[in-house]
């Protein structure tokens, strides 16, 4: 394996120019709004990523789904433009805007040509500040959301994910349902949309990334135009969630040929000093490549699945360690047994020096490949700010991965991995599996 270690050294030399291209500047607008910028004038367009911390977790218990529905309505008209006029205007400008909500954030991703910037930005400002929430649009989008909820209720992956979240987080907003229920969504009024909008859009939870054909001065003016009139603050964020995951199996009966399993246990905070060791550990155990132990044992050796993955899910209000697998009903029991055994083995005997070295080489080498395209870089800039990472993080991140030792990985494996607390939610008609009684 000398060859591989040599390869990793050679890569570090090429890493510097790779990342030198991503020079982040912090821009503060005349009115004091901050953003991160990567200038690149080689193509005449820019990507703008706008994130608001809080996301759908800001919905009160009796209004679950309001923020998800409201986010879907942002593209349905603002200011003087109704839904159709608004959509036509965007098409004329060849700009696109995407909207997404999750437990922790509402994200807006915009892309616009430099030549149309001055016409596009007022449109985007109105989207944020003057959405119309017309009754017609509310009713129409509501029907789409309800249709989506009904589909989710019959999708084994969605059923498993929702059941796991509810088990892990209970009545905390993380326990769901993020998109609401048919009942709550059906009852939403225009007032609810305005309230949901007020909960999300405030300056003190705003994070902005801009990438492309924009100068710092231009960005400063853009920030003031887009955000200066937003309220300073909004409702408080929810409390941290208590994670309660007990080891065992929950079977949800569903008539389909392949069982889907979501599994997990408590996780590790993004700012925990051991986070990078855990990250390397997960890469070895189930981190999405063909080389992981889970992929190797469950797919390559036994052919029990098309894919098996695990991933750290550190969120703002709680952290879990999750995974998923799908196997035909008569084979899922074996897949789960193998996964459980691997969890146990990693907890008790850790990893090998070669595994740690290979994982680090992969993680450090693959990192620059993420920075491909203005939109993706803008997303990363907002992600970094939401995670409270410093401006120079991109330059220091690989050193943090490289600093992880075999001893770190093995210590964290013993501390973090808890096979007795690993819970599997299985949706299907699994043969030889029953819900454990706790």
């Amino acid at each position, binding site marked *: 394996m000398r060859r591989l270690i040599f390869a990793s050294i050679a890569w570090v030399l090429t890493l510097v120019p790779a990342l030198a291209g991503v020079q982040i500047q912090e821009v503060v607008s005349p009115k004091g709004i901050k953003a991160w910028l990567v200038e690149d004038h080689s193509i005449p367009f820019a990507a703008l990523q706008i994130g608001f911390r809080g996301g759908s977790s800001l919905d009160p218990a009796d209004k679950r789904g309001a923020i998800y529905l409201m986010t879907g309505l942002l593209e349905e008209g603002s200011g003087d433009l109704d839904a159709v006029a608004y959509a036509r205007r965007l098409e004329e400008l060849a700009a*696109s805007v995407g909207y997404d909500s999750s437990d922790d954030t509402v994200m807006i991703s915009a892309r616009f040509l430099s030549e149309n910037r001055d016409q596009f930005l007022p449109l985007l400002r109105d989207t944020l500040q003057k959405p119309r929430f017309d009754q017609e649009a509310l009713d129409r989008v509501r029907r789409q959301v309800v249709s989506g909820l009904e*589909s*989710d209720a019959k999708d084994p992956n969605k059923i498993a994910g929702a059941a796991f979240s509810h088990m892990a987080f209970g009545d905390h907003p993380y326990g769901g349902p993020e998109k609401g229920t048919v009942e709550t969504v059906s009852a939403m009024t225009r007032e609810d949309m305005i309230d949901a909008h007020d909960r999300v859009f405030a300056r003190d939870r705003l994070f902005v990334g801009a990438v492309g054909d924009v100068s710092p001065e231009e960005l400063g003016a853009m920030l003031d135009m887009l955000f200066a009139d937003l309220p300073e603050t909004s409702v408080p964020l929810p409390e941290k969630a208590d994670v309660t995951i007990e080891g065992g199996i929950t079977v949800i009966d569903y008539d*389909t040929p392949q069982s889907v399993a979501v599994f997990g246990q408590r996780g590790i905070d993004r700012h925990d000093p051991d986070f990078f060791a855990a990250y390397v550990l997960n890469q070895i155990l189930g981190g999405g490549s063909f080389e992981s132990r889970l992929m190797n044992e469950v797919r390559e050796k036994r052919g029990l699945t098309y894919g098996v993955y695990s991933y750290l899910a550190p969120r703002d209000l709680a952290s879990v360690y999750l995974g998923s697998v799908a196997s035909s009903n008569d084979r899922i029991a074996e897949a789960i047994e193998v996964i459980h055994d691997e969890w146990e083995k990693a907890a008790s005997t850790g990893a090998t020096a070669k595994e740690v070295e290979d994982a680090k080489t992969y993680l450090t080498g693959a990192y620059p490949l993420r920075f491909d395209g203005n939109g993706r870089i803008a997303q990363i800039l907002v992600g970094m700010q939401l995670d409270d990472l410093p401006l120079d993080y991109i330059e220091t991140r690989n050193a943090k991965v490289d600093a992880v030792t075999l001893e770190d990985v093995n210590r964290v494996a013993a501390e973090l991995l808890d096979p007795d607390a690993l819970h599997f939610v299985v949706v299907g008609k699994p043969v030889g599996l029953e819900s454990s009684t706790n």
Partner: protein
Amino acid sequence: MHRILLGLAAAIGLGSAALAEDVKEAVTTFTLDNGMQVVVVEDHRAPVVQHMVWYRVGSADEPPGVSGVAHFLEHLMFKATDTLEAGELSATVAANGGTDNAFTSYDYTAYFQRIAADRLELMMQMESDRMANLRLTENNITTERDVILEERNQRVDNNPRGLFAEQMGSAQYLSHHYGIPIIGWRHEMEQLDMDDVMDFYKTYYAPNNAILVVSGDVDPQEVLDLAETYYGAIPANPDLKPRARPQDPPQIAERRLTFRDPRVAQQYVNRSYLAPERDAGAQEKAAALTLLAEVLGGGNTSYLAQKMQFEQKLAVYTGAFYSGVALDDTTFDLIVVPAPGVSMEQAEAEMDKAVAAFIDEGVDPEQLERIKMQLRASQIYARDDVEGIGSRYGRGLTSGLTVEDIQNWPDVLQAVTGEDIIAAAKAVLRPETSVTGWLMRAEETTQ
């Protein structure tokens, strides 16, 4: 819903070679002595390269009775060669900080790595090795066959929409293998063996049936030199025949089907029509159909959405779909998801009325101009996606197009008129070449 606008932008971003002078793609092409085509797309913004090998073979080229073998072989290409252990190629890519994968379609099979540009030679060494030196064991066959069966479970059998799409395809094509799913019919997949796989490999995996597409921070001459060293050393397959697949007789009767499944939450109507694909030197009809799909069902401002979602409120969702990149006749598809309380009969009837009214009224010139503006813009946005540029050439070249066709496509799209679109609609949206499918909830209730 959240992503309809983005989806529209993505959907019309199909073709996007240069239009304005300053957005010309830096494309260089070569052909090696053994017949392997080489396409190099330069982009020096980051020291990264995408290395792809595209074979001019896909599931529609499979012999009868072994459906899924093209895709099965794609999986098995990650096993051992004379000099690489099973899994070593991917492990080596990963250990060099890269990512790799492969995909199979009706008309092509492709393998790719994304990695630091200075690792290109290593990629070519390994990729060329598995073009000629694959060594499979019986255990590889039995284990990986289980994997593809689980993949079929995941993509199709666990998903009524997947099963419905298979039925739609098989109703549309009588002989042509576009009517057979890429992943294969389960009963045939279960029987795939070493001989099936190796016959396919030996017939089709050869440099004269392959296209190398390298995009990123590379010098074309250096790529050519490396390609000659690694791919140039592999002999051509002299027995490779021109691609000739079973063709359908003309369709003369409309076909209908209803698929019921208790796992269906949202019922919908799907209509597909046989439609011409983009042909080398003759892309005009396909261009008109591409714009027809946008005008008729490409998002909230499209004709169907305006009529059925906004005015009549009979549909939750409507859409029209067409992709002209195919070797043989493809399909133009319409989808209507009825609103609550609207029957499938009514949804289908209103869809037909709306399409007839559209043909009658003609194309709104302002709408067409907006779409063309977006197409022009998509060429600027596409320059930010060097992965996408490489794939566009690979897909086009394995589907019978030339580099020139691919580069001309944006101009061909811009030249389409409203009259062209209506003429294309009249020519293609004919009942006798259609299949109408209803995806429905099962009548019995489930627990």
